């Protein structure tokens, strides 16, 4: 139905743009990871030194493992919060469904900075939470362990990514044919059995998609630790950021970025495969 000329007019500009401003930049990052810095200058000499440094220096690995621990914490917590939310809305919200759905969508898209900043004002040593605890006479002196700890980062990022986890979970619960649940109940299964044998297995694709979002987005986060984390919760992206800034070692920073990129893409690929296998359609 559409002519050749029409097809090339619609596909060429986006292809060229994406090639020039997405593919080429990612390629440049990849290339940088094989170059090096000598006497403060970037040298285009191909080598594997950056990757060797990455795997031999325990600091980088330690930070990477901490980042994965934080990401796992955020993933787990946002699933624990997102699942009941999605379940309630899909099965029990009734007429309030539409309103509640919008109440989750709004924080999904509202400014990351505004929400991160809100947590900073709450958890800080002169913050609202400390003021509240002193007001209740729970503590006499300001307690400082809320702010500047990995826990604060997990809390803040859980707040930010719970709506991201909610969306695919809710979608997968909505897609469960209701007659399967009715059948399970008619045949005498308890609500508990129905949940564990019918609903949970059928919502696994959504659960996996949500978990992937939370994990991957936390993995590359560098603003959380800067806002509420402090030195004890430096994550891998903070190292990248400092290598591109004051430390001026773009090749090493690129090598770490390439690792994050590969980790992200392989996780996405893997979970997509699993989701396809687990979905019943």
């Amino acid at each position, binding site marked *: *139905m*559409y002519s050749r*000329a*029409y*097809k090339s007019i*619609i*596909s060429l500009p*986006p292809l060229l743009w*994406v090639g020039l*401003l997405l*593919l*080429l*930049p*990612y390629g*440049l*990052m990849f290339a940088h990871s094989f170059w090096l810095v000598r006497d403060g200058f970037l040298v285009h000499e191909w080598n594997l030194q950056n990757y060797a440094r990455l795997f031999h220096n325990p600091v980088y690995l330690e930070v990477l493992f901490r980042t994965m621990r934080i990401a796992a914490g955020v993933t787990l917590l946002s699933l624990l919060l997102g699942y*009941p939310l999605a*379940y*309630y*809305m899909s*099965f*029990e919200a009734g007429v309030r*469904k*539409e309103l*509640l759905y919008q*109440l989750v*969508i709004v*924080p999904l*898209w*509202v*400014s*990351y*900075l*505004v929400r991160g900043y*809100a947590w*900073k*004002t*709450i958890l800080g040593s*002169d913050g*609202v939470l400390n*003021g509240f605890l002193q*007001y209740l006479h729970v503590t006499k002196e300001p307690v400082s362990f809320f702010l500047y700890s990995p826990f604060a980062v997990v809390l803040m990022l859980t*707040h930010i990514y719970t*709506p991201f986890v909610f969306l695919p979970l809710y979608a997968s619960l*909505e897609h469960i044919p209701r007659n399967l649940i009715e059948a399970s*109940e008619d045949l005498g299964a308890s*609500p508990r059995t129905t949940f564990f044998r019918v609903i949970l297995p059928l919502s696994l694709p959504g659960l996996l998609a949500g978990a992937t*979002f939370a994990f*991957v987005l936390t993995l*590359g*986060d*560098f*603003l959380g630790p800067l*806002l509420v984390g402090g030195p004890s919760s430096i994550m891998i992206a903070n190292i*990248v950021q400092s290598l*591109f800034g004051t430390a001026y070692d*773009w090749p090493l920073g*690129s090598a770490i*970025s390439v690792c994050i990129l590969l980790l992200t893409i392989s996780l*996405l690929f893997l979970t997509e495969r699993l989701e396809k296998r687990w979905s019943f359609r």
Partner: protein
Amino acid sequence: MVFPVSRPFRRSARNPLLGLLTLVVFAFLYLPIAVLILYSFNREGVGGFPPRHFTLDWYRQLFTDAAIWDSVLNSLLVAFAAVVLSLTLGLLAALALDRADFPGKSIFRRLVLLPLILPGIITGLSLLMFAVFAGLELSLLTVFLGHGTALISVATTELFAGLQKMDRTQEEASLDLGATPFQTFCRVTLPNLKLSLIAAGLLIFTLSMDEIAVSFFLIGRDNTLPLEIWARLRRGITPEINAVSTLIFFISVILILIWYRIRARTIGKEAQELLERP
């Protein structure tokens, strides 16, 4: 409004604990923002409990703060330009994915959507390297290129969903009756997609106004609003930041709700899986 996938349905037993848990989750999502707003009106500033004296002083201070308004202007400039760029390219990309076949199409689809799921730092840094490579000085222009490019992902998903919902017969009729493809595009395709375009534009505008992770690496001398706030945070928390954050929150909420309403009308509920996987 009715969700097409779920028909009237009652579980035998409702769990009161679940309702309570849902309430707790909503409290977790909204309490921090409520606290932020509350303290923007507190005379004693941020922290301390309870907030005692109501004041609008922080808002007054905000409205006379020239640096903030300069950065708002910069953000608006970037956001409008990013909307135009990403809608144009996103529309073409959505059309191409919908009706053209070319080698590497599935790779192209994944690549376009990648910035949506990839951490902002990766997109920001790779574009920084591109700017250096291309000899571009860091400025609002590079921030605009970053936003415009990264947000093609949002434009493409939104407009592709709109295209899928569109009635094809009108386009076929137009072409059969002798209109050129260009005329058909202008008189049939575009008017049909008008609401989808407006909705996508609103969402992209909001996202660009709020964006920080990509801009962080592409910013030159002139700050956007989120980066101006970021720079001030280094000097400490002030109630003025609460005031500006409160305004950002309410404006974002309004834009997002308009986007959502239009989207629900044009695309419908079943396409609500907003976050298509790359």
